[in-house]
């Protein structure tokens, strides 16, 4: 039962569902740049490394 949890933890679990107190999420452009940096850039580095 939820009552077994410390009261502060229960309060935190309830309040963190509010978007205003959650961490700011990543946006679509963040994911796009992330994909470029971690997939496209390594692919280019590998291609250059193999060719050299």
């Amino acid at each position, binding site marked *: 039962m939820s009552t077994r949890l410390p009261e502060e933890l229960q309060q935190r679990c309830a309040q963190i569902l509010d978007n205003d*107190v959650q961490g700011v999420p990543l946006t679509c452009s963040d994911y796009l740049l992330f994909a470029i940096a971690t997939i496209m850039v390594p692919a280019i580095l590998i291609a250059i490394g*193999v060719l050299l």
Partner: protein
Amino acid sequence: MSIDNYKLAEENGWPLMRSERGFGKLAIFLAAFSTAMATWCFTIGGFVSTYLSATAGTFALLAGSLLGIVMVTLATLPMCSKYGIDSVVASRAQLGTRGSYLSLFLVYTSTMGWNVILFIYKGRAIAELLVTFGIMDRKYWNLCVAIVGVLAVFVVLDLIRKGPEYVRSRGPIIAIMVTVMSTVVLGLLIMRVGLHGVLSAVAIAPYDGAAGNWTSALEVMVAVNLSWWPYVGPIVRTSPSARQSLWPVVVGFGLGVGIGSLVGLYTGLVVKDSGGDPTSFLVDQGGVIVGIVMLAFLLIANVGTAMMGIYASSLAVRQLPKADKLSWKWTIFLVSLPAMLVVGFFASSAESFFTIFLAFLGVAFAPLCGIQIADWFVLRRGRFDVLSLYLPDRSSKYFYLAGLNPVGFVAFAAGIATYIYLLDPINYVYRTPFQYTTASFPAAIVAGVVYIVGVMLFLAPSGVGGYGRKSAAPSGRPASPVTETATPAPVV
């Protein structure tokens, strides 16, 4: 009741509110970078020198470090940052309230495994310096390694007994010092052997095919980056924004270990049988001054990393029932005790241990990342029932079957089987198509797909695990007083 006990929440892995999180971009980057840069970089680079020359190895290390950070970032950063929770707590949604003991075990073994390697290498470096300077006879080498290694554990414990905040606040100082010192070490190495000597050196024992060599080097970097799984959650939960944490994680953890490993790569190529560790060579060539520089590097670099390792594993262990009753000091001591025993009695086995340990990281964390990514992005669409992450019994949506999610464990096993099929983790012998795919990425993809299929077939129809339209608060538990409205409902 107001929420005001930040320290309690911080030490026990409870959700942190955005206003409580004080770490900005620079602090996150420095914490990540100081964790990534350690003497394991020598060994990782040395491992790559087995397969690739300096030019190819440099490109492979940089590419692999970026590729490797993909899975661990997607599997931890969005959820840990959103709810202010750590990686182990987040895994309860996929493995079950008791099933998350598996991730706790993985966190403990990986962080302590790294720490054992660091402590042993620190002991070996100091022993080598003492022998080189004629202070100690070589016959006491093993004893010296064990004693220095155990003493190093106590030094780290003394530093982190002040609490988690202290651990992270030291990150900037350590990161700056490590950057300067590693640049000095790289400069010394190139001065001694010359740039041409490095560039013309050939790989030590490559496979016949280029693809196998490239992929082996990339796989090592992917596996190393997967081992950041325990570290990312505890760091990013203290930042108010995932956007603020993303690039510090990619550059600090990912590129940090790649750049740091370059010294090990070059050393491994030009100093045969060094395994990438430049200590002995540089001391032989450079004498006392170079020896002191190396010693300073080893002490500073490894202390920062070991601190974060013990911190992350202590945070995970405190998730165990009743473990939160222990004081912070007792927690870190008990967590470190097995590492002390291993360092004290098995220091001479470090070489064989390292290769198997690297494989273990890929075998264990790749499937877990695949499952978490599939769950968060495909099945739950970016939301957890946060209270259920902490409820220990049937009132939790994540209780599943006796606290274990069978679908999660089957998917995990499928990922492990895929990895082992592609790459023998003991002998490091691969099967096609490893040379084109690595082993970690297919293992993660298989685990993720099996998880999605399993959830849709077995869990979603009955609403178990918070999946499906039938999902509701389990009996005996009131609905949460606050509900998320800005994110869509789970897709199944």
